[in-house]
């Protein structure tokens, strides 16, 4: 009989993050698909009651918590200790969690402590003939595997954006708090805050409907033999602000900052998509001035509708990667796009 534990941490405001509600939905579905399986919930945060209440309808047999100021912020030592306490108390054979930066860092350590195994970046979860199967990508989204494991505990980190979030009316939940005293050894690290990756603009919007990818062509010499980096900067920022798009970049463009070339100042490696960047999930993607093939394809794997603007019709983008390729000067097109958006603001 599988004892399934759903683990999550709260956001700073005490609510359950969207990624956690998505993973909870997957956990609830999994429990229903396995005969005799039980569900427990384990929450970590400063105050988790509000989050627990929002999950009242998930039919968990117990709601465990490790709460307090020591567990408000993301720190490996305290997170790993909290998750370990929850897992041991629940006696879980399967542990499901959303893939957040916090769980992605701490849960591998938990797998080691429990002598279990862990799979990350899970994008599919099902039961076939009583056997749990997961799907995940290998080689940076270039190969999709379906696998199962016999070793328990089996920890699963579920990628966000796959399952619909768990939605139900909140109701009071009786929490079972676990007492956990952290040793000084677990407090050698202090979290002092957060800061934006680039100082001039907030350009990464994970929930945006559109990903705008800027390629190195924006900083190259244009038809007049000159570069127009300032103009490119203004066009791109104007567009992503008006369209409320998220900004991605090719590796070659962000690398220019390390090579002493003129750069777009609001770009950092955080914007980079592809082999050594992120593989974001957005319904639509618009690539401009990008070249290259396989590394970019990786970055586009989870973009549903793709369009590109490029001067080269034979670019790798054109060959089966984008739905539409506009062979045109991106400076001219985006300038007109921005004018139109001013007249007709994006929804």
């Amino acid at each position, binding site marked *: 009989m599988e004892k399934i534990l759903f683990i999550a941490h709260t956001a700073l405001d005490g609510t359950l993050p969207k990624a956690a509600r998505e993973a909870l939905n997957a956990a609830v579905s999994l429990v229903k698909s396995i005969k005799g399986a039980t569900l427990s919930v384990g929450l970590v945060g400063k105050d988790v009651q509000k989050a627990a209440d929002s999950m009242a309808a998930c039919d968990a047999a117990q709601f465990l918590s490790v709460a307090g100021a020591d567990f408000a912020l993301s720190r490996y030592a305290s997170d790993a200790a909290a998750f370990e306490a929850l897992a041991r108390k629940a006696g879980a054979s399967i542990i499901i969690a959303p893939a957040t930066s916090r769980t992605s860092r701490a849960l*591998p350590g938990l797998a080691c402590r429990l002598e279990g195994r862990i799979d990350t970046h899970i994008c599919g979860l099902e039961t076939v003939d009583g056997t749990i199967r997961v799907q995940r990508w290998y080689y940076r989204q270039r*190969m999709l595997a379906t696998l199962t494991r016999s070793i328990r505990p089996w920890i699963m980190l579920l990628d966000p954006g796959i399952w619909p979030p768990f939605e139900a009316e909140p109701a009071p939940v009786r929490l079972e708090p676990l007492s956990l005293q952290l040793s000084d050894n677990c407090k050698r690290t202090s979290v002092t805050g957060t800061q934006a990756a680039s100082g001039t603009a907030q350009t990464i919007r994970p929930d945006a409907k559109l990903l705008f990818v800027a390629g190195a062509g924006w900083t190259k010499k244009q038809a007049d033999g000159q570069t127009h980096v300032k103009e490119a900067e203004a066009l791109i920022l104007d567009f992503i602000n008006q369209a409320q798009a998220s900004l991605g970049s090719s590796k070659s463009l962000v690398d220019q900052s390390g090579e002493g070339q003129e750069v777009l100042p609001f770009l950092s490696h955080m914007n980079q998509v592809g082999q050594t960047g992120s593989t974001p999930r957005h319904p639509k993607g618009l690539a401009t001035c990008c070249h290259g093939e396989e590394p970019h394809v990786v970055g586009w794997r989870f973009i549903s509708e793709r369009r590109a603007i490029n001067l080269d019709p034979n670019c790798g983008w054109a060959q089966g990667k984008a739905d539409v390729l506009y062979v045109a000067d991106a400076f001219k097109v985006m300038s007109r796009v921005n004018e139109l958006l001013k007249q007709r603001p994006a929804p």
Partner: protein
Amino acid sequence: MESLFHIVVCASLVPDPLQTLEPVPGPALKNESMLPSVLDPWAAHALYEAAHLAKHNRGSRVFLVSLAPKLKLQQLMMSIAQKVPFELVALDGPAGAFTDAYEVACVLADAIQKIPGLDQTRLLLFGGCASASRDAGVTMQIIGEKLGIKDQFLAVDELTIQDNGALRILERIEGGQYLVSVCQGPPAVLGWATGNLPEPPNNPQVGMANMRGIMPALQKAPAVKVGAQGVDFLSLELPKQQRQTKIVKDLQPFEIAREIVDWIKS
């Protein structure tokens, strides 16, 4: 104030990203032994950051611990050795994606513990935040646990040594933000993202110095067994990525702009 660090970088090789990959039963990659390899990109950033840190903290040492087929590792060293100074600790075993991170972490942790003269109180354990092969992002944390290190950081882009020897670390978190942490000092695990350093240029002198240690390290590399105990790969497939691209050549910019805006709003 300068500090003295023993920086262990865990890094292996992966197929060149421009290669076409095809799975075969096993699972494995078709012609895996023939595929050109590169140093795992995020781990490479970790190596460059390690060398940079060691350069600015005299007396520090950089160890590169690598699990890979010995012959492929030797080929890779011909290029990597010219980048930055390091001492190689080689393990002869599979480097593909389909081994389990837990088993890999166990042999790496064991090898690290056996490094002669390694001072664990000065240890900074570096690696990539994930590999470009398995892409699990868990190996570094498990090694850290095996070594008893409770201060761990993932997706690191910046490490600054403060005047009091504390480590100020920026980790990538959601929404394009960095989490800013201060750790009292080593030992610590840092799984690097891209960091801030460009790839160092080749330096033949560094290469010559490195090769004196690399060849003996390769010769005495122990064969290790790693697999994926308890894992059953049920299927492995390539995504259907081909799209019927409509190439639009003859529209004016304002017409294209109108199409794009209509599409964005649809």
